[in-house]
């Protein structure tokens, strides 16, 4: 399979470069010859296409076969416990299609039928309950768009510019419209009187897969905006995103968004599971570590141009495009620099951002054909300004793995090709 994908993507790339050469030659000016695509009758304008019975559920057209999740084989010992990356260099708008949204599994993606699904709520509740999938769908539900970012997104960059592609440096993120039941309704159904003072209580959430991934969430958050979701982007969750039911923990690190959610336990302390001690803690310069660092801070990145998405044309009008998000709320502003952070211009937000959701930004500019050092810098509604790599390292050192929300730099050469670099 991989080989097939690789070679077809290679073909796609070659086709792309041919088109690029043509475009550069034409240069936006008058074409010397009439275009045969227009003057000659094309097959598709004469012969009929596929019928409506051909594709009961479709995949993207073959020409987009390059827009796929990719993984970095050397990162982990086994793809069953590993991560892949969303092709954000090739997407636009804000919603991530499920089929190419990044996956992180600790023991592989399991197949769990709705009929076999059970959700237990136990611990410090008045009545421990078991719900079937059908039960969940009978609670009042809501729809929200939220980003889900792995805490390790951009983690490779702590040690310096390493991976050449925004898919690899920033692709552990997706953004979907979820349909689900507010967790607080399920907790209320089980009753929280027994828990007493809720301010120091927790819920421990756990998945049904073999890794039994579990995380402790403070009750305050659990009663706020956490959702027990069963649909994403209008359709059932895909297997790899936790079918039939996953947790959505807005603004907080992806590991807490437990997939194949099977149990919710009200406790009087954090469980301190492996995923909140050994992993997802941040080692500082002096060797002590921060724990319970749940929120994903404001961050932005330019998705195009970027190493996997070079400028396909010569000087002239250029759209610089990217994504910004904040686990603290809304993105209020994104600035873009073309000279490595010396001077900045404020970008146009594609849509006034939703809270804890991806915001698209555009800088509609004129490229003079010279080299550029592209950067983006996000601000959120708390006034927080996305820090530089140096600023982050000054506070945290370089021993960290997680929560790297630094400003990213792409070096763009005169041919429009981009490379991941670090600047002074």
């Amino acid at each position, binding site marked *: 399979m991989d080989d097939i994908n690789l070679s077809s993507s290679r073909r796609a790339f070659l086709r792309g470069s041919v088109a690029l050469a043509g475009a550069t030659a034409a240069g936006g000016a008058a074409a010397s010859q009439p275009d045969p695509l227009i003057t000659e009758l094309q097959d598709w304008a004469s012969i009929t296409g596929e019928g409506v019975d051909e594709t009961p559920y479709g995949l993207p057209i073959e020409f987009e076969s390059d827009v796929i999740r990719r993984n970095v084989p050397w990162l982990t010992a086994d793809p069953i416990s590993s991560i892949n990356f969303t092709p954000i260099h090739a997407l636009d708008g804000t919603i991530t299609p499920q089929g190419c949204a990044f996956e992180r599994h600790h023991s592989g993606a399991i197949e769990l039928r709705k009929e076999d699904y059970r959700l237990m709520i136990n611990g410090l509740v008045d009545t421990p309950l078991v719900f079937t999938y059908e039960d969940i769908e009978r609670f009042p539900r809501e729809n929200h768009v939220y980003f889900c970012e792995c805490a390790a997104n951009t983690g490779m960059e702590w040690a310096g510019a390493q991976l050449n592609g925004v898919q690899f440096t920033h692709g552990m993120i997706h953004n979907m419209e979820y349909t689900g039941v507010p967790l607080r309704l399920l907790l209320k159904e089980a009753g929280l009187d027994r828990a007493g003072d809720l301010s120091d209580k927790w819920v421990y959430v756990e998945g049904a897969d073999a890794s039994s991934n579990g995380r402790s969430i403070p009750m305050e958050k659990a009663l706020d905006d956490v959702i027990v979701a069963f649909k994403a982007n209008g359709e059932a969750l895909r297997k790899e995103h936790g079918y039939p039911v996953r947790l959505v923990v807005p603004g907080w690190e992806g590991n807490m968004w437990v997939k194949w959610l099977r149990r919710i336990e009200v406790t009087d302390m954090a469980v301190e599971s*492996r995923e909140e001690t050994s992993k997802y803690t941040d080692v500082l310069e002096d060797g002590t570590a921060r724990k319970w660092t749940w929120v994903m*801070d404001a961050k932005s990145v330019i998705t195009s141009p970027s190493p996997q998405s070079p400028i396909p044309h010569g000087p002239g009008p250029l759209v610089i495009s990217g994504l910004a998000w904040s686990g603290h709320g809304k993105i209020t502003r994104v600035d873009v620099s073309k000279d490595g952070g010396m001077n900045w211009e404020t970008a146009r937000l594609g849509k006034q951002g939703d809270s804890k959701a991806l915001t698209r930004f555009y800088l509609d500019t004129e490229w003079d054909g010279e080299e550029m050092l592209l950067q983006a810098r996000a601000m959120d509604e*708390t006034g927080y300004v996305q820090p530089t790599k140096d600023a982050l390292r000054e506070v945290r050192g370089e021993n960290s793995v997680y929560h790297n929300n630094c400003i990213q730099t792409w*070096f763009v050469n005169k041919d429009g090709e981009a490379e991941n*670099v670090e600047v002074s």
Partner: protein
Amino acid sequence: MSKSPNILVPALGGTALVLGVAYGLSSREHGDTEIELLQDRVEQVLVQADDARAQAATEVATANALKAEIEDVRATAALQVASGGSLTQPAPRLVESLGLGREAHQEEIAAWDVDVLPDGRGLPPGKGDVYTGEEVFATYCAACHGDFAEGVDNWPVLAGGFDTLADKDPVKTVGSYWPYLSTVWDYVHRSMPFGGAQTLTDDEVYAIVAYILYSNDLVDDDFELSHENFMDVEMHNADGFVVEGRDTEEYPIWRDEPCMSDCKDSVDITMRASVLDVTPETEEEGEDDAALELPQETPSTTTVQEAPVIKTAAVATPDPELAAAGKKVFRKCQSCHAVGEGAKHKTGPVLNNVLGSQIASVDGFKYSNALTEAGAAGGTWDAETLAAFLENPKKYLKGTKMAFAGLKRKEDQEAVAAYLATFLGNPG
């Protein structure tokens, strides 16, 4: 339809309307006008004749109830405005239970609620010593984590790494990093061995944890861990953690209005990704590479043709549909077994030519004594023995080190056998 429509707050038609409008505009003023209107109406009713008094009283009650609800909706609306767009109006608050779900049985809770808290709550009674732990670890864990928990290849390291936490590449192990022993017990019990989670007995887990402690110089070799002395063990890095810190150390300094022009004197490139070049190959390859790939396929085709025919005699030609189903079932096996060309041993042996061959006969794999003996006694793998083994490995062959819960369904056993039959004649 829910049993009692009154459970949902906005079920009263008028209320729902008021609430809807109040939310839709998210505006305090609007809510106030609504209240005024309601109050006016109530006052008008009050000045009416005596026989209207009873009705008026009800109206007042309703109005008061509405006021309370509007307060609530305002609070929710304010919250929604603060925390951004919901695509739906907020779900109604539940005044009383919806009566959904059923009460959990104690047995069900006992089966699923097995997490262990830092103070030891949740630990089952039991014990295990370092020696036993070493044996159990060698059987179930060492293939990936190494005989001394030092980690094989890219698999996690579980021991050592002391005094590296302040280095650039800290080695975070159970010994050097984990603050609580409960986490080790809990994780091994619930999530390991990889591919055979939740198959270890409680005593085996105690023994393994004792061994991991020993590998980390935390206990002596004659140590026995039990639920009784569990809380006495002191972890090296118990005091190594602080809660959060960004709110005080970072947010205040990163909230200044950012510089927009002439922000620095010069800009130099200090590092480039192309220098390390660790990006997986995707696009940037020329045509020549593609051409180079082709000849490689020739030898493998030849090998398949030359494959010994005897093997296939043991099993009928696999039904392609069944084999396809078996490929899916095999996902349960692939964390421990590889098949196909160039497959290598993992925790379990390569399974290319397993059907029709002697038990425990693949070169270069260290089998358990139990399996080796079964092979030496002339046992072979055929559809029947394989199905029996896969149904419950440890029951079929006491002492096998295949930590796998078993394939309970006959169809799955047959399907995976059919799938494995498609690898007969594969080298390796």
